[in-house]
């Protein structure tokens, strides 16, 4: 299977990049640890709420490093070589997605293990939470494919950082959107990150009272649109890069 072969290569490239591991795993783990030391009197920072936030925060770096890998492949002529091989577009897209899923799984396991060691009560709902977050991660990986197909390696740093900031400030991981209100609240509702966090938190708590129909619709629109656009733009760039 060509896509599995390609996924193996991508996985090796990613785990051998120390920066990728630091930002995707070490930094979120550090934040999970450090915020629990302050005993902040807010619901957001309780382990059962903050662990899903950290999962989402880790995903924003998955977007950044997926984008960097693709932009690097494009500029290094690596994709030109593969373009002359019998690999098909589906092999590339699925190869990139499959290579990231084991990293997402490792992230989830490490985040939950750390959270349990710090006092999170073990619950069977952790297993479906990991599965749901892996599905959500496909959105973040596709967003990385889209960014990596659109801009150069230098550009991925800038756009990737915007995704990290948007996740931090509009998902509700640090503070509820109602604290600022107004236009900010509308922006939070229009972006998919709050919906992602509510889905992960809801699955962990086995309580979806915070999840509205609007959240589900917004998430599905972004999920489908980003996957479709990433495929279209990647295919187009494969051709235009070779002109």
């Amino acid at each position: 299977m060509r896509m599995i072969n390609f996924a193996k290569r991508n996985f090796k490239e990613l785990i051998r990049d120390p920066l990728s591991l630091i930002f995707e795993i070490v930094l979120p783990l550090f934040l999970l640890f450090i915020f629990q030391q302050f005993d902040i009197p807010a619901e957001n920072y309780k382990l059962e709420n903050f662990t899903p936030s950290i999962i989402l925060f880790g995903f924003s770096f998955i977007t950044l490093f997926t984008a960097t890998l693709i932009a690097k492949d494009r500029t290094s002529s690596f994709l030109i070589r593969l373009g002359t091989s019998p690999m098909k577009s589906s092999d590339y897209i699925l190869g990139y997605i499959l290579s990231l899923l084991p990293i997402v799984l490792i992230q989830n396991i490490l985040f939950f293990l750390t959270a349990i060691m710090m006092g999170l009560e073990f619950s069977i709902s952790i297993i479906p939470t990991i599965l749901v977050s892996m599905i959500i991660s496909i959105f973040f990986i596709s967003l990385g494919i889209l960014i990596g197909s659109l801009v150069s390696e230098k550009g991925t740093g800038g756009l990737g950082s915007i995704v990290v900031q948007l996740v931090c400030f509009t998902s509700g991981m640090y503070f509820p959107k109602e604290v600022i209100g107004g236009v900010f609240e509308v922006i939070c509702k229009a972006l998919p990150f709050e919906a992602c966090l509510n889905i992960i938190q809801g699955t962990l708590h086995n309580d979806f009272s915070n999840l509205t129909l609007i959240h589900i619709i917004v998430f599905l629109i972004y999920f489908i649109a980003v996957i479709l656009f990433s495929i279209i733009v990647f295919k187009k760039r494969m051709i235009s890069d070779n002109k």
Partner: protein
Amino acid sequence: MIAIETKKLTKKFKDKVAVNEIDLKIKHGELFALLGVNGAGKTTTIKMLSGLILPTSGEIIIENMNMKKEVFKIKEILNVSPQETAIAPNLTVKENLEFMAGVYQIKDKEKKINELVKEFKLEDVLNKRAKTLSGGWQRRVSIAISLINNPKILFLDEPTLGLDVIARKELWKVINSLKGRITIILTTHYMEEAESLSDRIGIMANGSIVEVGTAKELIKKTKAKNFEDAFVSIATGGEL
């Protein structure tokens, strides 16, 4: 026996004609050099012949297969060593070879990899990450990778660009050893490289092939002192 044939091969980018009605026949086992100044249309021609981009019009027949109808079958029997070194930087040399063997679904991949390691003398760098190798070694690995699927057709785009004289001579030796076995299409800016390695040379200017022949034939035709002068005379239409 003809390995590659083009019939009125044309590529336009909006209003600009990059390649203009090229008719070309390259024989089995021939090393054919494609020369031309920057923007002459060499790289676009190679990209069309290797299935990377589609022609605007015209036909490409490779090993009796039509590029339009059997592109994936053609891709099984050709390979390319691009101008810039195209290897996975964080993978070792062995992993790069294994990866490309997987791309072409080579059945006895260990045997093929061992053959290439021996032929390209890669034993000492086999377990080193590709990004840690010198430019010369990276290029050598890049060419070794391009032979993983026993290609019938091999495109070498500026294979010795930026290499020092020793690395270049070593690569010439490797390329010479492939002659006769594989049909090779080589692009280069080094005249001595084209003269020394090729069976025939095609010179491109403004998207067209303006002259084809052996180095000696082209020197004779232009009454030049050497091949470089012959090339300049042909590429500029006798202006220089």
